[in-house]
């Protein structure tokens, strides 16, 4: 006598929305944990493995390091706020710093051509644009960069 019973697979959620809100000091060593947290949420919502391993980590690291370094100039008196909303449709992440903001439309240098290819910097916004579906910047009490990415299976 030997028998194993296994129940049916669980039926899916009919709707699911995960929101993460967090505040970190202006310290680049915080970036990795934020990325891990947001990527994990995307994993729950069954985003494509590449989105979880590449698009989200790299784009979010760029946004966070710009907020910490360019926005807050690593001022320990300033912090960075992050809000991520993850659904089965899309991920929306907002990174808010306490700096003066910048003109997104002016930062369109292509780091893949000519001299720029050999430069050490200047690939951040380019990667964010290539890895996300949309990048916006606006001011609402703070300088906010919003990134939107549709979920792929």
């Amino acid at each position: 006598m030997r028998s194993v019973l296994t129940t049916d697979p669980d039926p899916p959620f009919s709707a699911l929305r995960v929101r993460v809100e967090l505040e970190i000091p202006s310290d680049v060593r915080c970036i990795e944990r934020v990325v891990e947290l947001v990527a994990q949420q995307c994993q729950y919502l069954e985003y494509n493995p590449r989105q979880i391993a590449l698009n989200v980590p790299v784009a979010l690291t760029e946004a966070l390091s710009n907020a910490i370094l360019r926005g807050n100039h690593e001022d320990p008196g300033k912090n960075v706020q992050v809000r991520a909303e993850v659904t089965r449709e899309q991920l929306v992440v907002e990174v808010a710093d306490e700096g003066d903001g910048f003109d997104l439309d002016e930062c369109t240098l292509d780091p893949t051509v000519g001299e720029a290819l050999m430069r050490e910097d200047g690939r951040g916004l380019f990667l964010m644009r290539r890895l996300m579906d949309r990048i916006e910047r606006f001011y609402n009490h703070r300088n906010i960069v919003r990134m939107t990415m549709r979920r792929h299976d």
Partner: protein
Amino acid sequence: MSFSIKKQGDIVVVDVEGQLIVGNRQELKQKVLDELERGEKKFLIDFSQTGYIDSSGLGVLVSLSKKIREQGGELRLANLNDDLKTLFELTKLDTLFQIADSRERALETF
């Protein structure tokens, strides 16, 4: 995340474990520059244990490669997974580096 550095023949081999990003890229840069100053010429960075790389990590690779070349040396990369390959392709840095599929291949052809 951590870096481990060892020498195989006359080649300095660096393993990047975890992420190569703004928070730790400076360590990698310094370590490699120290070896370069000591007269090492051949460098291989192995990414088999690497998660993701951000723009500043890529930037460090570009600047190291330049500095090593200025000293008559060479920097090669090995073991990029598909996601990392895509990152190099997006930024066209795949045209700048010698990228080997395996550590052995990279070491052999140096």
